[in-house]
């Protein structure tokens, strides 16, 4: 199973500090990394090597925790422990900070762009999730402050095609939000994890959501609309979400990130036991009760905790990972024969 994940390259992306997060641009040509050194770095290929094309410094006073590209690929948002979110505009290899979003009371933990490109979401240790609207003049306005979680919110992610938002929290739950009559509301709470939920990922269709937790499990949730065939109860016109699969016993420490490949459906995890794992759904399994098999397990993928895994959106099998050791690694994943 070690052969299913082959190392292509390793770069010391954030020396003497930790690398917290990675994001591929929509074209799959650039990788943004961010870390404890308060910088964002942009990586691209030059022949067979990965080189640093830009360094975004002077944007934040503290750790940059997450980065996110806009759907058009021209903007990059960075979320920081300094309580702000910077919006950078790309001009060839240069990035200029065009706006700084303020308002959260303390560390911003995550930022995500909606598929339309008109909305942005941020979340923070202040327990809130903020939705921002951006207009044609690159003006940002906060349109909603959602206080549904009872603790630190660790991650936000948008549905791949709908204006539907999901958040993961230290309060052990996942919450879902949508716009109802000009206001954003929390319409579902997913309970089941026994500790902090660190990250989320929608499957390519958007019908399922994967969550990973400090409880060392990955859970797969499915949306059921009112009057669904399976007879899952819904309250009123709100969809219902049910946990349809739990992957337990595979990870020996906290799972910090989960990534669902939009090209192949493969699920990758980043774990505090320094390993990277990949799971694939068994083709013959019941869609309402799917089973997933472990198709790759690489212990010591990094010398310390793996914080993030990210599938390249265009190149099948290309996976990037980063770690507390400050390194970014690139991997080629090949589904093993006979599985």
């Amino acid at each position, binding site marked *: 199973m070690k052969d299913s994940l082959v190392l292509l390259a390793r770069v010391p992306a954030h020396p003497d500090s930790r690398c917290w997060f990675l994001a591929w641009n929509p074209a799959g040509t650039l990788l943004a990394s961010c870390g404890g050194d308060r910088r964002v770095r942009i990586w691209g290929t030059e022949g067979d090597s990965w080189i640093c094309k830009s360094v975004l410094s002077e944007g934040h006073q*503290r750790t940059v925790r997450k980065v996110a590209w806009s759907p058009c690929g021209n903007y990059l948002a960075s979320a920081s422990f300094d309580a702000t979110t910077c919006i950078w505009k790309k001009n060839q290899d240069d990035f200029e900070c065009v706006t700084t979003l303020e308002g959260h009371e303390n560390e911003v933990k995550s930022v995500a762009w909606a598929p339309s490109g008109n909305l942005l979401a941020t979340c923070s240790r202040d327990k809130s999730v903020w939705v921002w609207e951006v207009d044609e003049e690159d003006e940002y306005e906060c349109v909603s402050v959602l206080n549904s979680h009872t603790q630190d919110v660790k991650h936000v992610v948008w549905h791949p095609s709908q204006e539907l938002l999901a958040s993961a929290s230290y309060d052990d739950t996942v919450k879902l939000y949508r716009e109802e009559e000009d206001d954003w509301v929390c319409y579902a709470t997913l309970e089941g994890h026994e500790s902090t939920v660190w990250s989320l990922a929608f499957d390519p269709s958007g019908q399922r959501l994967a969550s990973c937790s400090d409880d060392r499990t990955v859970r797969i949730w499915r949306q059921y609309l009112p009057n669904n065939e399976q007879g899952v109860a819904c309250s009123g016109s709100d969809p219902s979400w049910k946990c349809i699969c739990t992957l337990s016993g595979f990870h020996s420490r906290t799972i910090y990130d989960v990534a669902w490949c939009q090209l192949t459906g493969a699920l990758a995890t980043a774990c*505090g036991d320094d390993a990277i794992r990949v799971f694939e759904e068994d083709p013959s399994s019941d869609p309402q009760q799917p089973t997933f098999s*472990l198709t790759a397990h690489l212990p010591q993928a990094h010398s310390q905790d793996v914080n993030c895994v990210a599938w390249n959106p265009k190149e099948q099998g290309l996976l990037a990972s980063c770690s507390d050791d400050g390194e970014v690694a690139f991997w080629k994943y090949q589904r093993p024969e006979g599985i």
Partner: protein
Amino acid sequence: MERVSGLLSWTRSRVLWLSGLFERGTARQPRIMEEKALEVYDLIRTIRDPEKPNTLEELEVVTESSVEVQEVNEEDYLVIIRFTPTVPHCSLATLIGLCLRVKLQRCLPFKHKLEIYISEGTHSTEEDINKQINDKERVAAAMENPNLREIVEQCVLEPD
């Protein structure tokens, strides 16, 4: 036929996973490492209490039996510390947890994962405190707070 191959592939991956477990040694009881535990204790006993002019050892916040080291894998250890705060004060307990983590992160020479807990039954909100001090994101952010950082630095400073 598809169902059978699905089942076979599932079984095969479970067998592979189990054999992977055996290779990693997690199927057997991890070895307790006493020498390593003493090495850890030597580093933490001199940490000063945030409020009193005494070390954690003097105040019996930590004792030799507070430290447990398990060998997870070759050259890979799990260090577990259970400490007893002097007073049931929330912020003080999290501060001690922070000091323990920072001292070991900086000074412990062998590769390790660290878990810190308040000894059972010594605090009303121990679950809350344990969760906080073991959340590395919360710890990292706390250490970027200049006031907190200053207090921690004073507590972990090696005696002359």
